[in-house]
């Protein structure tokens, strides 16, 4: 039972890290990144491929994080000077191109067969169940990221991000280089997604392109929206709720007379319905302050 809880918690932690990166982009800066999963994939595959070609695991992880940030820069350059929704369109396309690349460049990624047999940090040195160590590693990282982000968003830097979210014309009228801040937010958010990717790879011990379908991005979205945008604590709570929902409905099949593909579709539909209803009726999320609701109308 404990083992099972630990295993579930690791997934919660990984999704919390993944989503907290998105929260910096959307919650604080107002950037609509619909291709967050692309950065997760880059982090995971870079870590694994570097390690499989002989690099130490820590260096491999670092490369995954840096490469994810670099792709954040590349995606940001053509889009972040333009209207908000162009970023949404380009990122969703970007993440699909990443997935297609992983699927088709078999010489590098073995395509649909996926990759396995890579190291995990300190695996040889851990005398107990590795999952316990991974649990500590994931939650330790989440804690560090949480603290660093809290420090950042409560600094003058974070203040500029929020002003961009609210109205970027004001930010530039006050002398802030809006483009630079957006790029920074996107790069940091992507780097965090890259790290989540590395942890995902460690947890699964086998990665393939199917792990990185567009829907993964929207799990992060529902986590952030549920928790209330611009609330890092809320994001962590959101990750717990979404994962509980997934774990809780996993065995639905035994009780409901529906085919498994129907149950899968139903579970995803719930996410879509929640996204629509929350944005319509409770955009401040579960943790958001109520007074925010009436603003700007």
């Amino acid at each position, binding site marked *: 039972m404990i083992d099972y809880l630990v295993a579930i918690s690791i997934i919660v932690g990984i999704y919390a890290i993944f989503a907290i990166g998105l929260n910096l982009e959307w919650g604080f800066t107002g950037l609509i990144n619909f291709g967050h999963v692309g950065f997760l994939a880059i982090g995971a595959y870079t870590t694994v491929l570097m390690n499989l070609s002989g690099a130490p695991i820590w260096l491999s992880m670092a490369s995954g994080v840096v490469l994810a940030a670099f792709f954040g820069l590349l995606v940001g350059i053509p889009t972040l000077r333009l209207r908000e929704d162009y970023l949404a369109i380009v990122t969703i396309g970007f993440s699909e191109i990443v997935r297609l690349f992983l699927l088709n460049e078999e010489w590098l990624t073995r395509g649909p067969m996926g990759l396995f047999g890579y190291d995990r940090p300190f695996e040889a040195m851990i005398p107990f169940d590795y999952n316990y160590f991974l649990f500590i590693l994931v939650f330790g990282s989440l804690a560090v990221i949480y603290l660093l982000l809290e420090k*950042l968003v409560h600094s*003058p830097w974070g203040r500029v991000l929020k002003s961009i979210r609210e109205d970027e014309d004001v930010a*530039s*009228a*006050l002398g802030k*280089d809006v483009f630079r801040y957006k790029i920074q937010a996107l790069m940091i958010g992507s780097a965090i997604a890259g790290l989540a990717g590395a942890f995902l790879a460690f947890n699964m011990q086998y990665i393939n392109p199917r792990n990185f379908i567009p829907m993964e991005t929207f799990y992060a979205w529902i986590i952030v929206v549920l928790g209330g945008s611009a609330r890092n604590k809320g994001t962590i709570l959101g990750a717990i709720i979404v994962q509980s929902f997934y774990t809780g409905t996993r065995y639905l099949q035994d009780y409901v007379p529906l085919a498994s593909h129907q149950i899968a579709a139903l579970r995803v539909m719930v996410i879509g319905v929640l996204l629509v209803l929350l944005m319509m009726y409770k955009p401040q999320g579960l943790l958001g302050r109520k*007074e925010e609701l009436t603003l*700007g109308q």
Partner: protein
Amino acid sequence: MVQEILKVRDLKKYFGGVMAVDGASFSVEEQTIKGLIGANGAGKTTLFNLITGYYKLDSGKIFFKGERVEQMPTFKKAQIGMVRTFQLTKALSRMTVLENLLLGPKMQSGEHIRNIFLRPKMVADEEARIVEKALETLEFFDLMHMKDDYAGALSGGQKRLLEMARALMTDPKMLLLDEPFAGVNPTLARKLVGRIKELKERGMTFLIIEHDMTLITEVSDTLSFMNQGRIILEGAPEDVKHDPRVLDAYLGGG
């Protein structure tokens, strides 16, 4: 000797086929207050947007402190001292009133990620100074009691004050105010007029769009009258105000 801080030459801007600004030229001398008047649709706000860089101009020249600035992005103009407010107020709704003001000061060390982690003391000290200044400013603008409220909860007039206070926090050389008195109660509007004059004495320059003729005549050193995308008349407020063309635009055309 009098210095021109802002010089605009033959600015033109078309939207589709329509000429919004049609060869506007004028100058603002340093440490003066210039009022810009004209009927709705005369092109005043468009002119502001061109000067501050929100719109790309089709032709013409803009000099700020002697330097050509047509190609300079908005935020750089603000950094060298040209700051504007907006006709449709832009409060940053989901930020508190105090946060709105704290955003103002330029080149804050805490706006750089590396300083936040490497020079926390410097950032904290600077932040303390900024907070102090912001509180003083809030006091003046009668917004102190709302400092921790979301800016989105302010009334229309209060948002206008907030915007001006926020712009002042940047220590601008020149402020471009787009209808700063609209919706502000008369007592406070008078007080603002006094404050603007005081800031001028301390070296600041103003360009103000305003519809209230009494206030704009009272505050301005010179008035410029804009009609159909051009500045067609400039001079002492009393003279401009009584010019038949101005009377016609304000009374005749509505």
